């Protein structure tokens, strides 16, 4: 039997804007995926530790505070340290268009900005997450 896609949805930064993170978590769950939501104000260290512990296929970061250029690279570094090479890092939030290519260059798989549908996220994950044995 095929393993369900396992996703960690995480909310770094000091702000409390968790509407998007919670809506996405719910939509992915309704699409049959296993979702772990970290809650608010998680440090990159906490996020990557949770990803290791939960053995996830991908990590989704929701960032609305403007700190995305600091937080994504730091999470990627920690993922490398922990050997999470086949885990996909994607994200969403208030991220200006000109920052998206820069984030992809350093290894963020995809960025979903406001207006993206939950269906688009679901389809992206179904296509890109390795089919686990």
């Amino acid at each position, binding site marked *: 039997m095929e393993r369900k896609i396992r996703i960690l949805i995480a909310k770094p930064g*000091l*702000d*409390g804007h968790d509407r998007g993170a919670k809506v996405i978590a719910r939509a992915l769950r309704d699409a049959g995926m296993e979702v772990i939501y970290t809650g*608010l104000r998680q440090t990159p260290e906490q996020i990557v530790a949770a990803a290791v512990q939960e053995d996830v296929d991908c990590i989704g970061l929701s960032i609305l505070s403007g700190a995305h250029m600091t937080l994504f690279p730091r999470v990627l570094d920690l993922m490398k340290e922990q050997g999470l090479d086949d885990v996909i890092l994607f994200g969403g939030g*208030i991220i200006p268009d000109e920052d998206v290519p820069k984030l992809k260059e350093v290894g963020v798989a995809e960025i979903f900005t406001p207006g993206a549908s939950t269906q688009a996220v679901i389809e992206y994950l179904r296509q890109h997450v390795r089919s686990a044995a």
Partner: protein
Amino acid sequence: MSTTKNPASGTSEAEASWQEKTLEPTLRKMPERMEQFTTTSLYPIKRLYTPSDLDGIDFDEDVNFPGQFPYTRGIHATGHRGRLWTMRQFAGFGSAFDTNKRFKYLLAHGQTGLSTAFDLPTLMGLDADSPLSEGEVGKCGVAVSSLADMEALFDGIPLEEVTTSMTINAPASMILAMYFVVAEKQGASWRKISGTLQNDILKEFIAQKEWIYPPRPSMQLVIDSFKFCTDEVPRWNFVSVSGYHIREAGSTAIQELAFTLRDGIEYVQWGIDAGMDVDAFAPRISFFFNAHNDFFEEIAKYRAARRIWARVMRDRFGARDPRSWQLRFHTQTAGVTLTAQQPYNNVARVAIQALAGVLGGTQSLHTNSLDETLALPSEHAATIALRTQQIIAHETGVTNTVDPLAGSYFVEKLTSEMEAGALEYIRKIDEMGGMVEAIDRGYPQKEIHEAAYEFQRAMERGEKLVVGVNAYTEVSDESVQPPMLVIDNQTAELQIQRLADLRATRDSDGVARALDLLAAGAAEGRNTMPLLIDCVRAYCTLGEMCDALKAVYGEYQEPDF
């Protein structure tokens, strides 16, 4: 049988005849665009409202004249004919020096009150040099770590002459103490200064989620500030009970109305339980609502809010002073409706939302800038937002008469439906034992999440269209992007340096003594406000004051709902 007073134009008989002879042939020829029409809150709206919709609404009891109980038509007899609303644009970014310049710019351009946005570390009670503040200093608001920053923020602005609103919650008492000490140093009398402190911790647990302490000690801090202001700073509005953030988090209009008013009830109840006379403090409670896209739903919401509050205050709490019955509110247009796509469209959205706030009888208004979904507002965008209010005030004519939509079958009916929906939620929360208990159970949090998810699904099904996002997405000119205000990291460096200088030059024994007295006093249940004011005078930092109380009150961890 309809009891309408004007049988010629709207009896059920006449309506039946209209349906048969006029409506049905039309529907056969041209069906309606949708099966069900709903507001942006997914609330169903009928095809037509008629005099029969006014059944059950008693003009004298439920609507009445403006300035008269239950204030459905407004708290002032003359509406906006007497005085326009206060145009209060929220501002704050970078250092206290940067924001001080923006304040002076706004005052010079006709703004009539100040409104301060603090950065995330300040909102969380953290100093700029805390490791948790990295990357966030001065980004979403102004950084204030001590009295020195507050002095710079209001430098050259006479506090007896302007009113200041401060959007701060978990560390509201500490920031308020700083403001009072700045006034004291300017020689401004505490009895004359006026302004508004948001200080609404309940909606933090419900929606905005910037908390420090658990709900009960947090409420104690709030009540301490109520008492202190009532005695010492009588013109200060010490709480702005806020639906804005509840709505932004995805609630419906009815939920915004219900949870906000139930929060208001909770504050009044705690004040009374603490031994205060309701009429001594209730007139200083104000409210803060969202102005969302659905025009009539918003207007009905404001009218229902006044009616519910008047009755709650008179009948539930036995308040006798009419000022305790009158719901005064600030309005801000809905940030969540702004789109990054085709950002200039936001000017139109903001204008229509602001118009709903004005027609709903708001006392003050913030209009969002077109670029706020991308970054903090640029000066140009902020000016257009202010000009939008001035156009409504001086060009549209909507201020010529009081509550012009009263008597509309639709608006009166919708007002009553909003009221009924909110009262049902209030009853449920009463049954749970109050808002603090409801928060413990995650009740309002879950209701809001449910509504946010439903709206998202309706949008994805194409039932709700957002121009530029899921409809009309063709962009004629990709280069049309507004200029953006960027806060560099220099702000943080300067702020951290200033803080290091402060820590090196202040009387550290005095700081330690003031903090010890604060913690000891809080543990004994003494009013924290005078203790905080002494800490501020000694130049204790925000983080130091908040930490001293963490040792007494503990820290909040959100349960998993």
